[in-house]
């Protein structure tokens, strides 16, 4: 069925989240139409240290911050990072 089509998204980690994940980026195959929250649950299952910093995690798709109900499509780049510290 159409809604079971699988799409591939790239997940990127920034700053010390790279250390928590152990990689700076990786790909996830997800069901087309899944939302960001669904992906994040899988990411946190795979990397329990990221579960521990859940409350201080910022999440973007491409170059925009997005809420957990944001729907993902093929080729989306999802970024997870700690609070920003510019200046």
């Amino acid at each position, binding site marked *: 069925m159409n809604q079971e089509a699988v799409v591939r998204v790239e997940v*990127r980690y*920034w*700053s*010390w989240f790279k250390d928590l994940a152990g990689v700076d980026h990786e790909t996830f195959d997800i069901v087309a139409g899944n939302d960001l929250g669904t992906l994040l649950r899988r990411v946190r299952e795979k990397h329990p240290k990221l579960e521990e910093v859940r409350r201080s995690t*910022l999440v*973007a798709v*491409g*170059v*925009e*911050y997005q809420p957990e109900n944001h729907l993902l499509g093929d080729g989306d780049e999802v*970024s997870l*990072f*700690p609070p*920003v*510290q*510019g*200046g």
Partner: protein
Amino acid sequence: MLKHLLLTRDPIDHAALRAGRIATPTAGAVLEFLGIVRGSEDGAPITAIDYEAFDAMAEHQFRKLFDELERRWPRVESVRLVHRLGMVPVAEPSLWVEISSPHRGEAFEACQWLIDEMKRAVPIWKRSISGA
């Protein structure tokens, strides 16, 4: 409104930036802010800060902030911002912001707002480097 943004691995060249300012007969106030790497972080001595950025998103978020600044302070004539990335030694600037406007109040407000918003939304992170 003139909007200039630069994310650079090179040292911030004040003199060139200041020389590049376009004077107008309506700009009565120019405010410049320099953020400088201090010699300690959380009480411990450091020698540098290594700044990392998600460049594409940082540029996009800065552009959105510039646009919002223009909506909030339409009389601001110019906003220029340079953020240095990579290794910045102690006592060197990591951030330069310049706001030019007809009057002083809006320059101060807009400058503080822009830096506050940067620290909320622009994906740049720091890592303290200690000596030896």
